[in-house]
């Protein structure tokens, strides 16, 4: 029963990683860049939904919606101001810029909201008790897992079936050829950032519901873990990010429970290294097999 409890907590933690990883992987897939500021957009989403709920007194769902809108705009602005001018710059320059944006967001949050942690009110409260109370699952966990699955399915349908979704895949493969189809590549990349950032806001609200201390650095570690999850599953792949996120959460939860609390992060990264040694492209990553 204990094992089951750890597994459940791992899956729900992993669902948050997966939601963040989906944003990472989409941006990587289309813009071919690692947006290291993604984790900090989560933090911003956390603050905005916090302010909307506590200061404006909006209902939970509405406050998350406000955060999504805010982060969508933030994502588009970051992309337009910081990354677009570097479109043909070496990828190292883009990476350094992304790290710069990450520090900028953290320090802006520090300036505006201060260093003191805020006590976040979970989006839902209460727990579900199963097996005569032997197994208790918080409603936040359930909501998180459902959100994650819905988001994953929606993104899969969007990229697989819609005109804009296919355009994204076209850009991801060959931007020049996509332009020759009449696809506006800049707008497509903007849209990708918009979607990724809206997801980050959702992840922010869920993350803060799990561990209700909200600080300017709240997004850093989950951001890095989600990046790991995306690589783990095969960066660029939507189901890969989903599976990678869940696995990472489960490994972390079980590692913490059965091996060592202090070492749980190390265990996570050690598993990542082993997986990448065996499968360099990640679990679901494309092995290059294209015919030229």
């Amino acid at each position, binding site marked *: 029963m204990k094992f089951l409890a750890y597994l459940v907590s791992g899956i729900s933690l992993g669902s948050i990683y997966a939601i963040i990883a989906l944003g990472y992987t989409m941006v990587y897939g289309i813009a071919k860049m690692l947006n290291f500021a993604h984790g900090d957009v989560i933090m911003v989403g956390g603050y905005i939904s916090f302010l909307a709920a506590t200061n404006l007194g909006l209902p939970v769902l509405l406050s998350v919606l406000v955060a999504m809108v805010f982060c969508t705009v933030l994502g588009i602005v970051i992309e337009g101001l910081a990354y677009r001018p570097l479109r043909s710059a070496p990828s190292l320059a883009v990476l350094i810029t992304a790290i710069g944006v990450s520090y900028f967001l953290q320090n802006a949050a520090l300036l505006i909201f201060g260093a003191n942690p805020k006590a976040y009110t979970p989006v839902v409260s209460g727990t579900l008790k199963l097996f005569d109370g032997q197994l208790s699952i918080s409603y936040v966990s359930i909501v998180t897992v459902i959100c994650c699955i819905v988001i994953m399915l929606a993104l899969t349908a969007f990229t697989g079936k819609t*005109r804009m979704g*296919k*355009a994204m*895949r*076209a850009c991801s*493969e*060959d931007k*020049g*050829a*996509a*332009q*020759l*189809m*009449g*696809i*506006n*590549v800049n707008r497509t990349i903007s849209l990708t950032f918009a979607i990724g950032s809206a997801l980050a806001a959702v992840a922010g609200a869920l993350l803060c519901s799990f561990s209700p201390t909200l600080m300017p650095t709240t997004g850093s570690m989950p951001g890095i873990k989600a990046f790991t999850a995306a690589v783990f599953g095969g960066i660029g792949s939507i189901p890969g990010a989903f599976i990678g996120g869940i696995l990472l959460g489960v490994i972390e939860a079980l590692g913490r429970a059965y091996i060592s609390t202090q070492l749980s992060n190390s265990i996570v990264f050690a598993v990542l290294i082993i997986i990448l040694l065996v499968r360099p492209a990640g679990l679901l990553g*494309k092995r290059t*097999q*294209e*015919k*030229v």
Partner: protein
Amino acid sequence: MMLKAENLNVYYGPIHAVKGVSFEVNEGEVVTLIGANGAGKSTSLKTVSGLMRSRGGAIEFMGKSIASTPAHKIVELGIAHVPEGRRIFTSMTVEENLDMGAFTVRGGNIDADKERVFEQFPRLKERRKQIAGTLSGGEQQMLAMGRALMSHPKLLMLDEPSMGLAPILVEQVFDIIAALHKAGTTILLVEQNAEMALSIADRAYVMETGRITFSGTGKELAASEDVQKAYLGG
């Protein structure tokens, strides 16, 4: 006049790839651009479709300047570019590639357009659900051409459509070009296979190291000794 490019100068960093090139294409013509490797043929096409920019000079399409129009808008105006090396979307299915070709078509009947392409390229029809990266080279070329036709181009630019194809497929590709021409599509054709290109072209330009060194009707070029020597092995 449909397309008029004047005094194009195109650079890749310090490399001056196209040096003061001018050419034009009249409505209904097949015009070919031939020349050795590295002459600047592909670069010229890329400049027309907006993937590259000319320093100075002018490009007019149907009487409208397109020299600073973004590439994705140029497609909408009616220029389709089948790039060198095909550049189909290898991870998408054949049908999805055609859908991408129709990206600028709003409100039209895309399914009917697809059927039209399938009539022209029956091999694609059998493979409509196949991942494009697994097509043979010839099939990929047909897909690239079919994809370009989905946008209903007024001007179709083809960059070495015969590259890497077996002789029988080259014939087939040229038959298709001739058929498109007959159906009223204006074509700008870049080719290494000068003999084939000249056989269907109304007019031709010869490029050498970034410059146009010769121009005339297909017959004039085929008859020219210089061109004979350089490109036709005569």
